[in-house]
């Protein structure tokens, strides 16, 4: 999977949980889920669970805590996919 494919899949996952739609349209690697997209911490859990289902990976507590930005999430997903 290319970085672009991964990014587009991630964007689809986060979309229903995003409060700030404008920040979603201007999504970059640095976009912060909580500060920029205004996703609450409960829905952040849903993002992580949806990521697990979509990519068929398991996210542990430590990785979950890292997944606060687009870049950090892509890094975690790539690592988990590589170690499958």
């Amino acid at each position, binding site marked *: 999977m290319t970085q672009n494919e991964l990014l587009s899949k991630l964007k689809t996952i986060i979309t229903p949980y995003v409060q700030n739609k404008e920040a979603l349209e201007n999504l970059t690697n640095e976009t912060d889920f909580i500060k920029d997209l205004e996703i*609450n*911490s*409960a*829905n952040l*859990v849903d993002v*992580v*669970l949806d990521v697990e289902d979509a990519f068929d990976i398991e996210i542990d*507590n430590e990785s*979950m805590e890292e997944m606060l930005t687009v870049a950090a999430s892509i890094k975690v997903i790539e690592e988990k996919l590589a170690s499958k």
Partner: protein
Amino acid sequence: MYKDQIIEKLPYSTPFLFVDKVVDVDEEHITGEYTFTEDEFFYKGHFVDNPITPGVILTECMAQIGLACFGIYLLKDAWDQKNWSIAMTSNEMNFYKPVFPKEKVIVVATKIYFRFNKLKCQVTMYTKDQTVIAKGNISGMAFKK
């Protein structure tokens, strides 16, 4: 964990504690009950001369059993009132029957998932003769203060 110990660990008190007893609990389900007393604070205004338990209070009762009690059980020794807090984060409820003063309700919650300190449950409230009062999904989170 003993069932009666769960209630001692709850961060609520009168007039906002809506659990009398945890009847049964395991890793997948919880059952609890509460009897609405005649002098609950909200009956004076909901409604005037016509006391009926507000839907938000029924939801709160379901959340205190299906999220707070259940979550404390699932968190085991990690939970303590001093360093942790809880919040309801979403609910979607349907109501089928009014609850009047002095009525006993039984709440059964089934875990949908408990991950990263978020608990999501399917929850149903029954009368003592097993008629459905309310049904829906609720979620909540436990977090360090």
